[in-house]
């Protein structure tokens, strides 16, 4: 019923915080969202149609313990994989959308995630629709080894096709976006938005601290830091995200579509 804000310690009533799009009323901390919540907060009600819901990961390397890990992630999240893709409308504008859910093995990218993202980009091409991806990920999925790493190249090539077709791709970086995913489709948006406070980087801060044996400054690798360093277009608070996305799409497609 009650949750504690991990940043300011405020005790928040669950119902209230959902009403506030899961942002702490006191300090503005953006809680991580499930894919379902993200879709609900972003799309026009009832507009979502899912793609590839049955597409699931294999165990291409026969990696020990991986099937059990997948089964557990499926059970706890109710999702088949770490990304949900489909089509829907934002303020009336039709888009192809993908949402990653960090509860699913840290939304790491294996073959199934790479394939779903690629197919979403391909559908956007076929239907000449904008693509909006809400990114969150710990990186490439270790248990799928090089098959996972190569999804970086595969998804980057898919973005290139969208680009060549003159279509709009907006990536929205959410907490956390790191590793191989940050170094592929996440950073390739025509327009890159981010949620306040989201951790975004190639190497995670803990690994950097261990390597350089120094404490990192406050705010390092946060969305605001990336905007300051010229890496993203705009930090957008969750309360304005739907409106900003709608406006960007509107400015690209004209009136209605």
């Amino acid at each position: 019923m009650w949750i504690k804000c991990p940043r300011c310690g405020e005790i928040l009533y669950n119902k209230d915080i959902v009403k506030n799009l899961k942002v702490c009323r006191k300090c503005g901390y953006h809680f991580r969202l499930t894919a379902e919540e993200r879709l609900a907060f972003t799309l026009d009600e009832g507009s979502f149609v899912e793609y590839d819901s049955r597409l699931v990961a294999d165990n291409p390397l026969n990696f020990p313990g991986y099937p059990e890990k997948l089964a557990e992630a499926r059970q706890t999240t109710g999702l088949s994989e770490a990304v949900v893709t489909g089509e829907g409308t934002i303020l009336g504008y039709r888009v192809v959308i993908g949402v990653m859910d960090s509860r699913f093995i840290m939304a790491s990218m294996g073959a199934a995630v790479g394939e779903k993202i690629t197919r979403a980009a391909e559908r956007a091409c076929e239907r000449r629709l904008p693509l909006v991806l809400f990114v969150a990920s710990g990186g490439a999925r270790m248990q799928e080894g090089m098959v996972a790493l190569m999804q970086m190249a595969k998804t980057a090539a898919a973005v290139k096709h969208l680009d060549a077709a003159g279509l709009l791709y907006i990536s929205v970086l959410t907490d956390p976006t790191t590793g191989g995913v940050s170094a592929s489709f996440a950073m390739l948006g025509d327009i890159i938005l981010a949620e306040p406070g989201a951790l975004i980087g190639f190497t995670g801060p803990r690994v950097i601290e261990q390597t350089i044996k120094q404490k990192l400054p406050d705010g390092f690798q946060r969305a605001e830091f990336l905007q300051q360093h010229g890496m993203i277009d705009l930090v957008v608070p969750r309360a304005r995200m739907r409106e900003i996305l709608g406006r960007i799409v509107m400015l690209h497609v004209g009136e209605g579509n």
Partner: protein
Amino acid sequence: MPTILDFERPFVELENKIAELTSFSREKDLDLSGEIEHLEKRAEELKRSIFANLTPWQRVQLARHPDRPNTEEYVRMLFEDFIEFHGDRCYGEDPAVLGGIGRFNGTAVTVIGHRKGRDTRENVSRNFGMAHPEGFRKALRLMHQAEKFGRPVITFIDTPGAHCGVGAEERGQSCAIAQNLLGMSALRVPIIVVVIGEGGSGGALALGVGDRILMQEHAIFSVISPEGCASILWKDPSRAQEAAEALKLTAHDLLALGIVDEVIPEPLGGAHRDPKRAAALLRERMVQHLETLKRVAPEELVRSRCAKFRQIGLVSEEAGESG
């Protein structure tokens, strides 16, 4: 002093004994040829049997062998008229990436590779082959230059990974790698990628999107180092050997998985035991692939390169356990 790995020791010791015996026989003018020949045969057999049964971890050690030929040495052995070019025209020059133009088998090409050093001093000055964003951006700049002049691109992969640090993050390590993946996927000239040592994750892939990915027999290519994998998954870096098995990072494993196109043999004992021979074996295969690719039209080149990556990890729809 050359570095001797544990599993190299038995035949290296035998080889040392042979060398001693040879000089002894010469000094004393004794005929020990029968004895020496016998030992040489044994050393060869020993080497053969050890190398026929290498574990993935032993290959990791070979791929990281301090005496293993590096990019600079292969460039010297394989290219004529090579000229090095520097800088990303944006921030700086990254010595962890080598780039330039030269002639390969008569064709003007652009050559790019991660640059490890031969000794500690060299390695420190080149950051052990771990590139900053400016290194990746220099690589992409040179690739676009190659495209303009219709030059094929040849890249050498040999890095523990992209550099991890504050400056690299501030200057957009993720963005630089991502741009390379996108840029290489669309480049309208042939790209041949040769994995010669350590293919460490995203920092390796940033030079690794090609029409052909060739991999030396004892090179590795992995999503994460075995040590990193073991410490993340099992909270125990000492289980790196086990991780090396699980990650399927050897050339033959990756050929079977359809990640690389060809495994290039190395001289018995590994490339470091005979760098010239290793280079000759590389040259032979690179020539053949380059000649084939030079005849492919740019559109078809890009189309089939993308198709090749498109099919990696093609998964099937599975009804049942998922929703």
